[in-house]
């Protein structure tokens, strides 16, 4: 526990000192301010009388859109944006944790302590998750509060959608750690992690790709890659489906199946196990 606390303190102090924490939360705050300014709702006697989005009137369709529907629709759409934003910011803010720890002169100070290498690496991972998670909570929590304040409508599913975003961040951070242990390069960790994210988006169309390739082994390879790599597209859809709830079409709600969650989590666990193994064998 002491090792974990020490690593959390170290990571947070570094984030604060190197302006990472400030930039992280500053960017999130910018988006929150834009969001808060963009929406103007006229609520009369508890009913929605009119709405403006980015200064434009929203067609109320003769007042048949309820405020709850509007909030749900908005939060569902915005959750996609937050999915990308939170993930990108999190990886950028935490990918350096392993490469910087492995620098000559620094790693000696850490490894000379009575801590196993696996414990050191995993506690640093947890510290990174706390840093990333705190921003997810800040961003989604503040937006949720603004919506509640402006509309009086509280949709807890919006907040819980943050859990799916957090899962994706945890898996991608595990991959970044693996690359960091192997290469000791922050730049490579960031590039390859974003690469995996977008590769996962492409692989969502794996059936079409498999049908398009000419050879069976190519199709098998595509399929295997689909099942191995994180399902970043499916989990993005799952965020939308979860936030929107039963209001959404069936084809969207189909994203809420266990398979993408389990296989993505397994990929993350595999990355962490491999990173730990490599780190114990590495010579400094």
């Amino acid at each position, binding site marked *: 526990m002491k090792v974990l606390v020490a690593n959390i303190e*170290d990571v947070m*102090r570094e984030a604060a000192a190197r302006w990472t924490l400030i930039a992280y939360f500053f960017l999130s705050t910018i988006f929150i301010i834009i969001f808060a300014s963009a929406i103007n709702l006229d609520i009369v006697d508890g009913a929605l009388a009119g709405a403006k989005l980015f200064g434009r009137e929203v067609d109320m369709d003769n007042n048949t859109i309820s405020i709850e529907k509007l909030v749900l629709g908005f939060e569902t759409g915005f959750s996609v944006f937050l999915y990308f934003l939170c993930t990108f910011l999190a990886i950028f803010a935490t990918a350096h944790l392993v490469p910087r720890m492995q620098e000559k002169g620094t790693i000696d*100070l850490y490894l000379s302590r*009575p801590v196993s290498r696996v414990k050191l690496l995993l506690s640093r991972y947890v510290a990174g998750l706390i840093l990333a998670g705190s921003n997810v909570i800040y961003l989604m929590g503040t937006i949720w509060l603004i919506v509640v304040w402006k509309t009086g409508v509280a949709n807890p599913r919006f907040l819980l959608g943050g859990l799916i975003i957090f899962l994706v961040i945890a898996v991608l951070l595990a991959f970044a750690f693996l690359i960091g242990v192997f290469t000791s390069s922050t730049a490579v960790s960031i590039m390859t992690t974003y690469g995996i994210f977008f590769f996962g988006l492409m692989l969502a169309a794996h059936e079409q790709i498999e049908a398009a390739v000419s050879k069976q082994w190519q199709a098998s390879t595509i399929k295997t890659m689909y099942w191995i790599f994180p399902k970043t597209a499916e989990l993005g859809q799952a965020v939308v489906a979860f936030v929107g709830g039963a209001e959404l079409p069936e084809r969207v709600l189909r994203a809420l199946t266990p398979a993408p969650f389990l296989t993505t989590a397994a990929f993350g666990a595999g990355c962490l196990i491999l990173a730990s193994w490599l780190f114990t064998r590495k010579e400094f």
Partner: protein
Amino acid sequence: MTPLIEVSGLRKQYRSSFGKSKITALDGIDFTVGEGELFGLLGPNGAGKTTTVKILLGLTHATAGHASVCGLPVRDPESRRSVGYLPEGHKIPNYLTARQALSIFGRMSGMSSRAIAQRIPALLDQVRLGQWADVRVKKFSKGMTQRLGLACALIHSPKVLLLDEPTDGVDPVGRREIRDLLRDEAKTNGTTVLLNSHLLSEIELTCDRVAVLRHGKVAAFGSVEELTRTTATYKMVATPIDESLVSAFRESGAGVERVNGHMVLSVSDLEHLNTLVDQLRARGGVLSELTPVRSTLEDVFVDLVRADMGESVGAHE
């Protein structure tokens, strides 16, 4: 004396980048360091000093042999519970203050927050950083950073200190303070100190025993006194010293070197020395000083390295 550091048959081979050739960093070294002992590790660049220290800390894995610290094999992280390490070129995160750095490393060594809070003020005073406790490391000078590194190594009151160039970048006054601190730790707390340094004068002034490494092997080993003692060379101050006396000494088989009004004599044994004294007195000379000449540790070190270079040149020829 209970050995706190034991090294036996230690070997380390590195593979080149593509695994084709092997580089032998350590070729079977043995030594022990007892409790409360100040032990120096010397050697030219590439001799295996830092590799030895890294194996003791588990930073690098030995190819063969055995090493233990505080009775535990070095692969066990618990062996480092009572070890403090100051690496060469250490990088304490410069965004931390001295207090924060000690707190983090103390916690990683298993100390409680209360114990850390109690220890920090006295420790910072001990390394003359008491007034800099809440200043960020990036504002420290090289010497101050080195002293903070030493404090980080001492924060958990270790039984064993492994120091790699501890006085690197430190001014002469600071070097003396560190020497005194290490001696104090050894004497008062029984701390075992293994010192890795290129500053031979520092090793000579600080350490009780030294091992000189060369090409991954122990080339010389013993106390500083044993290594620097030369029983066969004496300084003789006498009057008069003339060519006939020198010739007579040389005819007896002694090596004679005239230096600044005195002579340095190389003799085979004490009996030979007494024969030379008799010869001097027989000629009516007056002996005013006769002292054994000690070589410095630098002399021993350079002789070992040069002997190796001579072997290498001979081999090439």
